[in-house]
Structure formats: C-alpha cells, structure tokens
C-alpha cells in the first residue's frame, strides 16, 4: 500500500482544515478592512492583534486563561456534534457547573485539594444531569435537541440568576450591588506561575483534550458515537443502539461543560457572578472552535486558543492603539459564519468520481 500524494488528494484529505484556515484568513482580512475604513492602520492593527494575543509570555498566558472555558465548551460541542447530536447546550451546562461549584465549594470543610475534587465532581454531575434532562425531553417528545438545548440555556441562566439573587446572594460584599455569591476562600485552583493568570484548570483542559481524543478515536464507544455522527443509518444498520449512544454521548458532553464552568469559578472568578458564563460568550466560541476543527479534540484545542488569542489581542490593541476591541467580535463573527456555512455550501468538488452512479 503506497501513499500517493497529489494536489487532489491533499485537498480531499485536508479540505475541512484548509476551509477553516481560509475562514480565519478571510476573518482577519475583513477585520483589517474595517480597521482601515475606521481610520486605523490595518497592518499595525493585525500585527498588534497577533502580538497582543500570542507573542509574549503575558499574552500567551492570558490567552490560555481565556481559552480554558472555551476548550471545555468546544470539547463538549465536538463530542455531541461529532456524534450527530446537535446540542447547543454547552452554555446551560457550564452555568449549571459554575453555580454548583460556587454553592458547593464553601460548604465543604477540609483540605483545599479535597474541596476542589469534590466541587469539580459535583459540577460535572450537574452539567451531565442537565444535559441528560434535555436529551430525555428531546427523545420523549420527539422535539429537536437543538431547540430544546437552546431553550435550556435560558432556563439555566435565569435559574442561576435566581439563585444568586435570592438564595445565595452575598449582600454584605463590599462591592455594593454586585449580584454574586460569596467569595470562595478555601478550594480555589492555584495559578501555574504566580505572575500569570493561567491556572491549573488549563492543564486539566489539556488532559481532557487527550481523554476526549482517546475516547473518540480509540474506544468502541467512541467508534459508535463517530459512526452515528457520520451516518446514523449506517450505525443503525450495523446494530448500534442510537438511543443508548445518544445518552452516553450527551452525558459526557454535559460533564465536560459542567467541569469547564466549575473551573472558571474556582480558577478565575472565585465566585459565581450573574451572567459570568453568558456574557463573555464562551460557549459560542466553543461551538465555533468545534466547527472549525471538524469535531477533532486536538483541533478544538488549537481553535480555542486561536479564538481566545484574538480576543486577548483585541483588548491589547484597544489599549495601545485605541482600536475598539469589538473588532475581534467581528472577526470571530465572520469566522463563525463561514464555518457554519460549510454545512450548507460544500466546497466545489474537484472531480466527479468514476462509476459513482447508482442508476445509469
């Protein structure tokens, strides 16, 4: 079996990745054009964006911090979408994970490491159960999972708002008017280097990337999930029980999102602040990352770091060059639009296959 390398083959093999790269380049070009139109130097702006996002220890550390929750949302989405279940629920599950962490951590007395472990497990359970609930409702009432999970995001957000507002509010906090839970004193996740914000949650994220990659590619469960995603008819024909696979996949996907939410609380904010998961749009970035990488776990890691990097870079150019950081929202929006459009508009086929006709 020798490997033939030709341009056609290359594009066939890499069309998804090359597509995402093209999307990124177009996104940056549009960003540059808008900078030019609004009176900024586009070259300086883009270079500043990349520099501020990736090219200094501080920049890359900030990027890793920001990427951590995105990686979890991305893995969660990649697992679900890659298995053919279009769950948009990462956001709601992250919220459930985050609020659970903020409530559970202060309740546990004991060494910090124990608090962290118990809290993370509780949050994973919360995310997983929440995901299962949406899966169950979708199966029970034969409703689109996409819609159910989307609506569940709102339910989670308002539920967490309610809890923070009425049950676990910290009214004696010095920062008056903050809708937030009590500060977690014992059981926070430490930074890797005290100088930089990146905390050990990022290491956990890397581990999860490896674990998810292993599950998807090397286990029979992952095989079933993958085949269900690529062709559900084929999976059914081959005896894969779709219902069972769906529940397992969504359970795992919810647990990952819940873990991501918990780490954001324990490693970065140290409390649940109302809308802390929704307003930075972690889950949307995560879904974009999973689409960009065609549901590969390692791809999610790279795409998440990229998306986090342009956001961090964006806040840097805002400070240094007064370019509004919203520019990165535009860039990310363009990328999301292009990778989403991939589902609708396929890349032009290079050549029709011989004998690929069923009825002649």
């Amino acid at each position: 079996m020798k490997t033939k390398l030709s341009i056609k083959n290359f594009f066939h093999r890499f069309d998804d990745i090359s597509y995402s790269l093209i999307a990124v380049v177009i996104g940056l070009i549009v960003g540059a054009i808008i900078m030019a139109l609004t009176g900024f130097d586009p070259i300086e702006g883009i270079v500043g964006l990349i520099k501020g996002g990736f090219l200094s220890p501080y920049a890359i550390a900030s990027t890793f911090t920001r990427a951590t929750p995105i990686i979890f949302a991305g893995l969660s989405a990649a697992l679900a979408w890659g298995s053919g279940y279009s769950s948009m629920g990462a956001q709601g599950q992250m919220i459930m994970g985050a609020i659970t962490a903020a409530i559970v951590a202060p309740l546990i007395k004991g060494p910090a490491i124990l608090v962290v472990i118990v809290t993370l497990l509780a949050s994973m359970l919360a995310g997983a159960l929440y995901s299962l609930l949406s899966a169950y409702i979708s199966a029970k009432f034969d409703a689109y999972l996409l819609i159910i999970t989307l609506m569940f995001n709102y339910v989670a957000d308002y539920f967490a708002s309610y809890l923070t507002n009425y049950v676990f509010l910290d009214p004696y906090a010095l920062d008056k008017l903050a809708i937030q839970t009590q500060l977690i004193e014992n059981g926070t996740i430490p930074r890797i280097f005290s100088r930089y914000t990146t905390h050990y949650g990022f290491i956990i994220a890397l581990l999860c990337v490896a674990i998810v990659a292993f599950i998807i590619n090397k286990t029979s469960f992952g095989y079933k999930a993958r085949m269900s995603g690529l062709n559900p008819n084929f999976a059914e024909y081959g005896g894969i029980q779709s219902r069972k696979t769906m529940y397992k996949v969504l359970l795992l996907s919810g647990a990952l999102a819940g873990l991501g939410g918990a780490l954001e609380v324990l490693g970065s904010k140290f409390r649940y602040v109302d809308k802390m998961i929704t307003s930075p749009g972690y889950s949307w970035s995560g879904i974009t990352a999973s689409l960009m990488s065609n549901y590969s776990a390692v791809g999610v890691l790279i795409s998440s770091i990229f998306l986090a990097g342009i956001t961090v870079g964006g806040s840097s150019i805002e400070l240094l060059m007064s370019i509004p950081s919203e520019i990165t929202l535009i860039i990310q929006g363009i990328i999301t639009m292009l990778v989403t459009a991939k589902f609708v508009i396929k890349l032009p086929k290079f050549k029709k296959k011989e004998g690929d006709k069923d009825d002649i």
Partner: protein
Amino acid sequence: MKKFIILLISAMMVLSLAACGDKTGKEDNNDNPYADYKVAMISDTVGTDQFILQAKNRLEALAAEYGFHHTIIECSNTDDWQQKSRNACEAGYDLIVGVGWVAAAPLSQLADEFPDVEFGVIDTVAANERIMSINFNTTDGCYVLGVMVATAFPDDTVFGYIGNFQQQSNFEYKYGFMEGVKSVNPDAKFITAYADTYSDTQATYNKAVEVAAALGDNGHFIMGSVANSANAGIYQYALERGETGNKIYTSGLSVDQTTADNPYILTGLTKNTAIAMETIVKDFLEDGKITPGKTTLGVNEDAFCVVGVNFEANYLNAEIMTKEVIDAGKKAAQDLKDGKVELPYVMEDDYKE
C-alpha cells in the same frame, strides 16, 4: 493535523519577525512634570450612562489641563474587566481608576500583583487596602431629602421607605432620611420594606403597593433606594396610583429621574462621579501616589447631590416643590457644611427610631 500545526507555527514566526524592530523610544520629555503619567479609566460600556460619562468627561478635561496621557477602557463583561485591567497594568499605566461596583474585585486582585501601579475605585469599597476607594456619604444627602419631604408634606404623619436588603449600606440612606424628616416633624413615623433584590423591578413594585397601602391617608411619600434600575418599580406605581387621586410621591436614585412625564418623582439623589474622579486624579498628581484607603465624599463636596438643591433638576413639580421646600433643602445642606448639624455614623443595630 501535523501540517496544520506547522502552518500555524510558521505563520506565527513570520508575524513575529514582522513585529520586530517597531519599538519606539518614549517621547523626549518637555518641561511638563505630568507628561510621563499614564492614567486609565476602566468602566462598563460608556454609552449614554451619566454615571460613567461624568467621570470620563472630567478625566479628559483634567488630562487636557495637566497634560498627562490618558485612556478610557470599556468592558462588556466580567471577563473583559479581568483581562483589560490587567492589560493596563502590563502596559505600564501608572494609575487605573475603576468606575462602578464591578471594579472592586478585579482591581483588588491586581493591586497585590502590581505594586508599582496605583489604583482607585469609585462608588465602591475595594477589599484591598492599597486602593483608594471613593464612596459617597449618602446619609447627609438623605438628610437634606428628608427635610424637604417633611416640609412639602407638613400634614403627613407616616413616611415610607423601600430598600434592597436589610444591610448597613441601605441603612445609611434610611438613617439620613429619617433624621431629616424628624428635624422638621419630630413625631413622624416610618414604614420600612425591603425588596430583597437589586434587579427585580416587579418585586419592587409589589413592595411599593404594600407600603402605600400601609401609609393609607396618613402619608404620601415613599423613598426608594433599591437600585438604579429596580427603583423604577416605585416610579411606575406612583405614576399609576397618581391617576386614582390618592397620590403617592417618591424620589429618584443615581441619576436625575425627574421628568414631566412622571410628576410624582419630586426630586432625587445623584452621585457626582466627576468630583470623585477629580479627587483621585488630583491626589495622584501631587506626588505620583494615591492616598490608600477609603475616602468619603458627600453633600459638602457636592459629590452626593440632591436634585433641585446642589444639582439642577430636569423638571420640578412646582405644585409641591415650592420655593419654601427648595429653600429648606438648601438651608439643611448649608447647615451640614457649616457643622451646625452633624450626623454621627451609626450601625443599624445601635439605632433607635
């Protein structure tokens, strides 16, 4: 996948090469001793929010006057706050002023990590004592309000109050208001309620209904200090109730809420962030250091204002806010300034109505 990574890395390398050699030296200084100072203000999105705009405009004016470098950083979420304030520290800003309660948490964290950077926050008290926290003496302003209300409704025996939670920061409002009313009408009684929210307008509205019912014919005024937005529940109820004939009046919070559309909002309390900004910046410019700790500004500094007294009103309900009422307010403010009236700081538990 390997190819993709290689591509990404090579792209990064090219860009980093391009990025080299654009380091520029600092401008040669001129005679201005302030020219090297860099001041950043960080806040939620500015937009048309008076609370933030005042601070921003004052900072810009001061920068023009003294010739220091300044920038305004806007944040749209908590993650932005963390990231952007940190960026400002890394970028070598000398003073970072956070406007609003959101600022306390991220700046407290940074103050430990960046000992060379000075920090100020406005309208909150940061946990970190390295920070200069400007908060407002609300009691004095509420005293002035109380005097005006008692003068405007001489026949009323009961007055209403709605706060967010039963807590000291709220009590500071209620305490001033009660003292002001009692200075005119020593026998006045008060009905207090808590909305138990910062954000739920409907809950506040419901409390307004309850308090108004309790006031009956004996009172016509409810003071609210729930929160900028949720207070609207009281305004709404006052407007609706006004049409029934048995009118209820109230006062605004945070920014001037008086408007011809709702004549039942008689006056209000506002925070002047411009004065707060000026206090921090001027303190910093003296020697490049701020005065750490809590600084309280109030009616005396025109930093906490009563609409119609030391803050021009959009609209005054002339029927009730007569010259007599306004003058009573002005006199109360003057008395506080002159030290003729003093309101000692009291904890809620130690206070007897």
